[in-house]
């Protein structure tokens, strides 16, 4: 449901059938692993069995002698091992001097078929010197811990570098006011420690890439990615090619959630193609996906909040260590910015640490860093509410950030909708209902996430029949073709069905930043709006030509009608969009509207969730009885997709909270690398998740759009923490709150 009545928009806020829907429903949509090219070879990747080992040597001669094998590549085939940014680093794509986690790619093979390629992996002889490994973020920070990179020095907040080898890549500090004075002024201070475990995005489609390196050194890639241009630039950088020589073709994406920003397969596939002269396809297994791509960090967190007896927060402090995995670059930075973001408190001190250890290099995962940090903060707030005998929504409302509030990192909020979300939660049928029964409980929590703008390019051609093909470069993960088409249609005053959105290859549209950061409906919307305004200006000129009048006497209305001066007989002159489009061939030909935008006018998003649970005292299983997700979308362009994002984010947050975790053996091997054992919630595990869309328009967007896709993953864990406590009286401070962990707390000791 949407809380506000719809405005005067004709297209925005409606629910048309998605333009790409039929192809997906009938199975015609082409995904990366569907690509078939003449002469194409299949490949396989050899991965490290050790969590930490020096690579002494790689001998691929036996594999290369296999009759079905066409080529083998290792890191020695890269022209340079220089880091080319966060999308891909050559030494993670193919390990160089060290293997830093179990599953780290060491070599890749191309063969006549998949089975031959996989068999040939056994014929590659790798000599390892096994080194001690470290798997816990606190252990990795200790003096004397096994060091992954002897050259790494801590980047300190003042810009200095540490003076000794370490696993701590970065320390960030945000400070506001006087936190000590704030705690001294408090009547109540609660400080708690929390932990979260590594969790995976769980996209259904495994990573894949097909590459063809032509005789004239032009590389074409088909891959499942969130960023066509990001892959292009990373592959060009790793292979030492000019950007113009790499083209990335669009294919559909079967989920990403941040995990398909990094690219693992395109460069090896391209190198194998160069050696063989044939197209080469590499596809991961589910085990590869879980062990060797980029899950989110496990963390160790400490949060302290002080409050007056009347509930006013006087000081907030956090200490947070994030697992980066094998190379620096956890989502710690965003986690530190988000931890107290929903609240307005004068005194704050936040420290974050980015820590390498022998696990896969982490990647973005839906609101990266925020679910962990905000879980810790929200759990302490729930304890404060209990101690102060306050309703948890009311306490949050009392301390909520509003327009003009400044976060510890320095940002000052414009109009935001946290209070509106809290009020909608308070008024919701769910919160107003009674919950009774043994082992049942209710919890609430809020969450915050950013959204970003960045570069976005689009072009729209007006056809003579009044239809409008729209080309764009942003990968469509969550319905962005539909939302872009709708915003273009709204601006032109035409039907969404008259626009045909296409995602095109990197040579066919201007540079477009990747799909992530809750940016695509926002930034595509800006580009679609400016494209449409360009078309409106050009159509006004054509109408002026036809009516032989000044351009200033012609106006394009939001209803899609172009109006001019009265004719010689005094009759009104006007064209509908379709009528004027029909005149284009006779007045100079078709027209193209284009836009290249890079907006900084972001719209932060807030959400509040309510959950009722029942905990089985025999098994420790948590059953979700009822769930309501409330979120400020700014303006919901296509409410069905906004609701879908809210439900999807909540589902992933529930999985992270209750079940999903990487389980390791003593040698650093993941022991649950299948979707049977890495337990994501299915449709059978969850009830219908109710949604309430709040709309506080973002003044920095022509249609008021805010980021929508990420924030709904943030509140589930702390809401479930509160609900489980309400049900069984246990504060679960380690995620996931799995049956095992619950029983450890609730079952009586044997002795």
């Amino acid at each position: 449901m949407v809380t506000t009545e719809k405005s005067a928009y004709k297209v925005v806020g409606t629910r048309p059938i998605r333009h790409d829907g039929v192809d997906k429903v009938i199975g015609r949509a082409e995904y990366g692993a569907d690509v078939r090219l003449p002469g194409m070879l299949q490949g396989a990747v050899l991965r490290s069995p050790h969590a930490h080992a020096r690579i002494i040597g790689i001998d691929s001669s036996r594999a290369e002698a296999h009759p079905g094998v066409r080529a083998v590549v290792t890191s020695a085939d890269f022209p340079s091992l220089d880091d080319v940014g966060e999308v891909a680093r050559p030494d993670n794509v193919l390990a160089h001097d060290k293997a830093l986690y179990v599953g780290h790619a060491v070599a890749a093979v191309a063969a006549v078929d998949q089975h031959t390629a996989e068999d040939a992996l056994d014929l590659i002889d790798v000599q390892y010197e096994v080194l001690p490994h470290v798997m816990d973020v606190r252990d990795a920070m200790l003096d004397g811990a096994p060091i992954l990179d002897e050259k790494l020095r801590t980047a300190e907040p003042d810009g200095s570098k540490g003076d000794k080898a370490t696993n701590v890549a970065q320390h960030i500090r945000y400070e506001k006011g006087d936190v000590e004075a704030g705690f001294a002024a408090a009547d109540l201070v609660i400080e708690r420690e929390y932990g979260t475990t590594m969790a995976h995005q769980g996209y259904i489609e495994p990573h894949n890439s097909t590459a063809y390196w032509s005789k004239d050194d032009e590389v074409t890639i088909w891959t499942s990615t969130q960023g066509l241009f990001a892959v292009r630039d990373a592959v060009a950088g790793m292979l030492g090619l000019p950007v113009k020589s790499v083209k990335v073709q669009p294919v559909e994406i079967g989920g990403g959630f941040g995990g398909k920003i990094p690219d693992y397969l395109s460069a090896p596939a391209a190198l194998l193609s160069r050696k063989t002269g044939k197209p080469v396809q590499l596809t991961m297994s589910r085990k590869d996906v879980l062990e060797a791509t980029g899950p989110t960090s496990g963390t160790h967190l400490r949060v302290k909040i002080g409050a007056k007896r009347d509930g006013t927060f006087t000081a907030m402090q956090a200490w947070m260590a994030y697992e980066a995995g094998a190379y620096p670059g956890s989502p710690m930075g965003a986690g530190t910015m988000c931890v107290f973001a929903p609240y307005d408190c004068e005194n704050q001190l936040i420290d974050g640490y980015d820590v390498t250890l022998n696990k896969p290099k982490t990647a973005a995962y839906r609101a990266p860093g925020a679910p962990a940090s905000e879980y810790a903060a929200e759990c302490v707030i729930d304890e404060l509410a209990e101690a102060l005998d306050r309703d948890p929504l009311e306490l949050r409302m009392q301390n909520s950030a509003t327009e003009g509030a400044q976060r510890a990192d320095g940002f000052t909020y414009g109009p935001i909708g946290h209070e509106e979300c809290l009020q909608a939660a308070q008024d919701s049928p769910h919160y107003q209902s009674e919950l009774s029964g043994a082992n049942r409980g209710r919890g609430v929590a809020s969450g915050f996430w950013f959204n970003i703008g960045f570069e976005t390019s689009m072009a729209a051609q007006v056809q003579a029949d009044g239809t409008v093909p729209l080309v764009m470069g942003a990968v469509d993960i969550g319905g962005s073709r539909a939302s872009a088409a709708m915003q273009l249609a709204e601006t032109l005053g035409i039907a969404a069905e008259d626009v045909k959105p296409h995602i095109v290859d990197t040579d066919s549209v201007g540079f477009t930043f990747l799909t992530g950061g809750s940016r695509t409906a926002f930034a595509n919307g800006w580009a679609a709006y400016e494209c449409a305004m360009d078309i409106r200006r050009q159509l006004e000129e054509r109408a002026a030509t036809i009516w032989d009048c000044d351009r200033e006497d012609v106006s394009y209305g939001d209803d899609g009608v172009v109006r001019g001066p009265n004719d010689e007989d005094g009759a009104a002159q006007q064209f509908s969009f379709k009528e004027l489009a029909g005149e284009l061939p006779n007045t100079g030909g078709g027209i193209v509207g284009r836009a290249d935008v890079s907006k900084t006018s972001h719209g932060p998003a807030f959400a509040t969730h309510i959950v009722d649970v029942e905990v089985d005292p025999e098994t420790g299983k948590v059953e979700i009885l009822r769930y309501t997700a409330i979120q400020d979308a700014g303006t919901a362009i296509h409410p069905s997709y906004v609701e879908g994002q809210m439900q999807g984010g909540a589902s992933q947050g529930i999985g992270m909270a209750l079940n999903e975790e990487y389980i390791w053996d003593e040698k650093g091997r993941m022991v649950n690398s299948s979707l049977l054992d890495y337990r994501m919630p299915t449709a059978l595990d969850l009830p219908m998740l109710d949604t309430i869309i709040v709309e506080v328009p973002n003044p920095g967007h022509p249609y008021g759009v805010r980021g929508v896709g990420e924030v709904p993953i943030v509140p589930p864990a702390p809401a479930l923490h509160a609900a489980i406590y309400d049900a069984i009286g246990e504060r679960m401070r380690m995620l996931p709150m799995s049956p095992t962990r619950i029983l450890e707390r609730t079952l009586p000791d044997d002795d």
Partner: protein
Amino acid sequence: MAVVVVPPLLRPLTGDADRIQVEGATLRRVINELEARYPGVKARLVEGNKIRPEISIAVNGGIVAAGLVEPIAENDEIVIIPAISGGGAGPPRAG
């Protein structure tokens, strides 16, 4: 005039000022103006012709993608924050 929000760790260079009113039509001009008043600030923010990789700069809440040529308007709020590597799509670059 635009206002620059100075993080605590740069305040030793700005005489502890945490918000500084600055003239300038682009981010480059704003930083040059800051440098004229507080020598040493520019070196902490800029490397060659680019924002330093360990720094991100936000204008009115949004991380700038255009770099030093980012246009600055009257009353804009410019916030200097540590770069946030990794995390994909979170600010500054990147679920």
